[in-house]
């Protein structure tokens, strides 16, 4: 296994572990807490994902610009 593959496996594992902790944290919540957690999870996902979209769009736009 190469270092890159190992790194990928590790990152996947850590992402899964973080997801598990996040799910475990929601045990025994009241309705209001569950709603707040649901909104927070939505907000966190959109913020992270949209930031990645913007960054990647900017990168791709930079790569397609003609060299000056």
């Amino acid at each position, binding site marked *: 296994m190469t270092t*890159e593959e190992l*790194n*990928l496996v*590790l*990152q*996947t594992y*850590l*992402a*899964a*572990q*973080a*997801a598990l*902790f*996040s*799910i*475990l944290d*929601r045990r025994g*919540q*009241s*309705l*209001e807490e*569950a*709603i*707040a*957690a*649901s*909104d*927070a*999870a*939505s*907000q*966190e*996902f*959109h*913020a*992270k*994902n*949209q*930031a*990645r*979209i*913007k960054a*990647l*769009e900017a*990168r*791709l736009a930079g*790569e397609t610009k003609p060299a000056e």
Partner: protein
Amino acid sequence: MNVWKALFGTLLRALLLFVFNPLRKHGVIDQMLFDRLVDEGSQQILDIVITALVVLWSCRQKIEAYLIARYAHAATPTTSKSWIENAVKALSEWEKLKAALGNNAPSTIAKTLLVAVLIPGVIGLSACPSADRARIEKGSADLFTGLSTLSDINQAFLDAGEIEPQTALDNFKALEKIGTGLDTVRMRIRALGEITAENRNLIAALLDGVKDDLVSLQQTGVLGIKSGRSKQRFAIAITLAETGLSTLREFVVHVKKPVATAHLPLLNQDFSTLGKAAVIK
């Protein structure tokens, strides 16, 4: 038992420290995650192991008692009790299991495990209505956590050169579409006022829409991941998200008593702006 638990917990903690400390030192994981992995991780593993040991020990005792009774029935009247007990104890654990369950031991064990996994799920789904709304909200939160994980994995694949930047962008956009779809479902559910036997199918249809988006992400080949193994890992993550959606859907279609949503404090919030305000640059 507490002494053994403490001893085993210490050993487990030392093992986790040994595994994760180098990762922390090299900045792969931060201090907060490291603390959780070592503290909570060791506690969870310890709880699971202790429960499993108690259940296994109890099963072993019951199987031995059952075999002694069965052998005693088959033995001649002059056979002593101690002879039968020794004969049963002389069997290996696997032989005892096979003798107790018959020739289909592996299949019976698999079925028993399946039932053991299904029972808590069934009990959970038939919980009282006051917990129903919370269950849906928690399910939504879990799904967003799953989407977030997919986004993280997509980023990791991009960084590792496993996918082309344009494909990664398509994946991020597809995930965003699914997240927005899930937001719509959540808001529709909250706006309904209550979930009843009449409108539960409408909610199920909304959930199906989100699931279709998720399935199409995989089927249309948008993912574009180069290696088979990476593709498999992504597919597993998608399957997990799909399972979450299916569980949520199963719960909704089985709602019988009306579940009020009108009193929810966050009902009137404008969720379309959520996330946009927090986007970096």
